[in-house]
């Protein structure tokens, strides 16, 4: 008996299976590459070879593509990233007070008190500090991203790099390189700058109390962890499955949900083989002329996305049998 969680983001698609005690038994990480349908199908192909679909007794989705994911696979819970991350973090450690999450495309802070989220903030605007930005810099410096953190830790001293915005950070780094600073120092300087940027933007006005969990893909970077610890003045913790927390949270929430409904809406692994595709059309309902995306499975419509009113997405909710509240 497993619960499946899918975190569909614009950069990566994560799938997690947890058992009924909420232990992670399977994790799959895929690049979304602008094609969420394909990413999910790929993930399901992998699962199909190892598990029987009847073993999946609950399924949940999260991430910016959570509605699309739920239309494709059938989900018992469709949850925003904040709630999903908080749920997984609390499962890992009940004492957590602050979650620092930096993923491929965005960053968040979640403040928790006595197991309840009391405040949160998200940055979806500025690229500085996200995983994609670090990937890019690693590539530019010709260092494998996995070693980025080690480089930062090896640095004897640090260089001050302007981290307010991704474009400035990059040009400042190039400048410092030309001045002859070592790669180690520059990378450490970059980590410091990104941490300052995070604390001043996402963490603005929030009191960061221990215990702090550092999650999301960027938590793999030891340099970032060290820079946070230096800035905050205490140890922070990276959970073992730091990059899967969204998917794990979605799986657990789905499990809770099925305990109430008694039956899962999960449609099984068969979609891995089905012909799932999207078509878009311009709605002529009003001058907005939204480009609406329709998702099909063979000849059936699974759902509609992308309208500004709920003329089309309302139908999706009917198809999915979801309601709010």
């Amino acid at each position, binding site marked *: 008996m497993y619960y499946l969680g899918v975190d569909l983001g614009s950069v990566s698609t994560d799938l997690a299976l947890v058992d009924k005690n909420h232990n992670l038994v399977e994790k799959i990480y895929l690049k979304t590459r602008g094609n969420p349908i394909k990413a999910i199908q790929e993930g399901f192909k992998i699962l199909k070879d190892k598990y029987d679909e009847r073993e999946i007794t609950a399924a949940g989705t999260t991430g*910016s593509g959570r509605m699309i994911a739920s239309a494709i696979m059938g989900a*018992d*819970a*469709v*949850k*925003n*990233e*904040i*709630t999903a991350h908080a749920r997984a973090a609390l499962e890992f450690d009940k004492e957590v007070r602050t979650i620092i999450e930096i993923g491929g495309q*965005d960053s968040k802070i979640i403040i928790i008190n006595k197991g*309840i*989220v*009391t*405040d*949160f903030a*998200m940055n*979806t*605007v500025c690229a500085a500090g996200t995983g994609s930005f670090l990937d890019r810099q690693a590539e530019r410096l010709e260092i494998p991203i996995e070693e980025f953190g080690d480089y930062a830790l090896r640095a004897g001293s640090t260089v001050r790099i302007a981290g307010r915005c991704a474009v400035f950070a990059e040009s400042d780094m190039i400048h410092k390189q030309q001045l002859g600073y070592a790669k180690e120092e520059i990378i450490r300087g970059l980590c410091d700058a990104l941490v300052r940027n995070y604390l001043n933007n996402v963490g603005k*006005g929030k009191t960061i109390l221990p215990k702090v969990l550092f999650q999301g893909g960027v938590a793999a970077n030891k340099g970032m962890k060290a820079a946070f610890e230096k800035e905050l003045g205490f140890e922070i913790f990276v959970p073992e499955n730091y990059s899967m927390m969204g998917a794990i949270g979605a799986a657990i*929430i789905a499990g*809770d*949900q099925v305990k*109430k409904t008694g039956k899962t809406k999960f449609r099984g692994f068969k979609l891995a083989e089905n012909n799932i595709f999207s078509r878009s059309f311009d709605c002529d309902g*009003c*001058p*907005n*002329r939204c480009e609406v995306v329709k998702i099909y499975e063979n000849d059936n419509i699974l759902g509609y996305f992308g309208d*500004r*009113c*709920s003329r089309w997405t309302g139908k999706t*909710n009917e198809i999915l049998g*979801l*309601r*709010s*509240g």
Partner: protein
Amino acid sequence: MKVGIPKGLLYCKYHPFLVTFFGELGAEVIVSEDTNKNIFDAGIKYCVDDACLPVKIFHGHVNFLKDKCDLVVIPRIMQLWKNEYICPKFCGLPEMVLNNLNGLPPAITDPIYATSWKNLYSWAQKSGNLLGKNNRQIKVAFNKAIEAQKNHKTGIDDEGYEIKIALTGHPYNIYDKFLNMNLVKKINNLGMGIRTAEFTQEDILAREADNLYKRPFWTFVRENYGFALNSAKEKKVDGIIYVSSFNCGTDSVIIELIKNGLPDFPFLILKIDEHTGEAGINTRIEAFRDMLERRLFNESHISTLG
């Protein structure tokens, strides 16, 4: 004579007055459509980059009207209450619009001091004269317009929801559905009722604001701050959502004041500009709802959607 009235900025509050006044003067009143993609895009295209989104959208509305009327009204609202001002962008609005858009018909741009009916009348008189009307005709139209404005009630005060939030921010950010991506409906669909500032009496708003170290210089500050504090303290709402424009000076002041006044009260700020993605807005509102739900009810009560 066709008089064009742009459906932007404070139109949402003062349209009964404007529409009635020009209508009673015998003009054919043409109001721009609700903000839509064309109006929005034109606003972004023609307005200077660093303006706030509501001002940009206002440009789009004037652009929509420019070939459809003989005279366009660009309200230069200076004051709504004595000793207070509204955002400086309103005082310079006509200059911005006239410089950014080409091929406009003549415009009514006289300053509006709505601190008393008498002060407002001087604007009405000038505008009426432009339409070639005499004082008696203007007086009649003006009185009808005031009547229409007085009878007009706006505001939201939902009932029958388990969770209720105060929706704060400038009225155009709250009521322009295109600008805020259907925020009111989104909030309702997630099972939260809304209360807006209009249902709190002026004297209560003023009383809260009087507690500030300095009487606020801006009307928007008094209204939003007073409303937020009063709603929270009197437990009329479970949380506050503030819709704000990037680059808005008054918003940043109000937000800081509310945070200081209510340090532990659930408070969500939604910042909107032309680059804001709907997914991010949805995520924030949904997470806020989950947070309130967990605070108010027990653990097992968690929504399936959102």
